[in-house]
């Protein structure tokens, strides 16, 4: 129940669930993700309602989207989800170095994804698809941008956690944080699956 490390120095098998604080954190985060589901659901609904409202003379989703770039971004994000799983597995085996390594890989993938997204947005904006162009553009940038902001937040968050692990080591206090960050990262990935499906692929179909 208390926040002290295991007396023998060896962690319990699932350190993230070893303390009540840890279990609270994990459960609380799950519920938070439930709320995030509604949040993104609402964003999706605004996008779906407004995606046809392109406005006279502005590029349509069909003309706009660059599927190759989206495919690469998707691949990157899916892979980063896998590497974050590896990080958690390493954590369960108390292989701290490996865990840090996988986390860093995950962060790097996240940064790559963000870079691509920024590049993509810049390109769209140059084609006359700006935030205030039309209802379609506003809802597009808000939905995809919200996701991007989540990725950015995740990148910063995981980086800070890596710093903490380096300083304090893996304990029953830090383990839940890592675990929760991992969940967050998967969730971002899951949201992206719907974004590339609903926004890009369905947008391309018309």
């Amino acid at each position, binding site marked *: *129940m208390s926040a002290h490390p295991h007396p023998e120095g060896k962690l*319990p*098998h*699932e350190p993230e*669930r*070893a*303390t*009540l604080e840890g*279990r609270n954190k994990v*459960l609380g985060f*799950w*519920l938070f*993700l*439930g*709320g*995030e*589901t*509604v949040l*993104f*659901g*609402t964003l*999706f*609904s*605004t996008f*779906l*309602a407004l995606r046809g409202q392109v406005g006279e003379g502005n590029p349509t989703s069909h003309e706009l989207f660059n*599927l190759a770039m989206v*495919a690469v971004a*998707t*691949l990157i994000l*899916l*892979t980063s*989800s*896998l590497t974050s*799983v*590896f990080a958690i*597995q390493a954590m*369960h*085996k108390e292989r701290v170095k490996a865990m840090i390594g996988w986390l860093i890989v995950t962060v790097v993938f996240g940064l790559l994804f963000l870079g691509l997204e920024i590049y993509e947005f810049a390109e769209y904006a140059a084609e006359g698809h700006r935030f205030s162009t039309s209802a379609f553009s506003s809802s597009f940038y808000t939905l995809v941008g919200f996701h991007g902001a989540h990725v950015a937040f995740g990148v910063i968050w995981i980086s800070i956690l890596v710093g903490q692990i380096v300083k304090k080591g893996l304990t029953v206090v830090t383990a839940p944080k890592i675990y929760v960050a991992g*969940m967050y990262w*998967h*969730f971002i*990935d*899951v949201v992206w*699956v*719907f974004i*590339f*499906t*609903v926004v890009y*692929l*369905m947008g*391309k*179909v*018309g």
Partner: protein
Amino acid sequence: MAGSEYSESPKPGKRYRHEGPRKHIIAYFFSILLTLIAFATVIAGEINTSFVYILLIVMAILQVIIQMSFWMHMKDRGHLFPIIGILGGVFVAFTLVVTAEYWTWW
């Protein structure tokens, strides 16, 4: 504090086997596969639009189920409240999406 079964810590006595990476790599493989199918259908083009929509949505849902159950461990014991939490969110999100599609323009 005992809490409910859904949130208790792992039983100390029980033998615990760390899961290997294999399941996760398989899940990753399926994810990529489903993604590829989705992209390929769209790039191929020239197919009935509503059919493609349905196909795409099914692919996405399948992929999400795979990822959530393997990577986020939702299939594991002790995830009743997480499942309720996510399903509750999905229910409201779905309501919103249906609303946007059918009751926003006329």
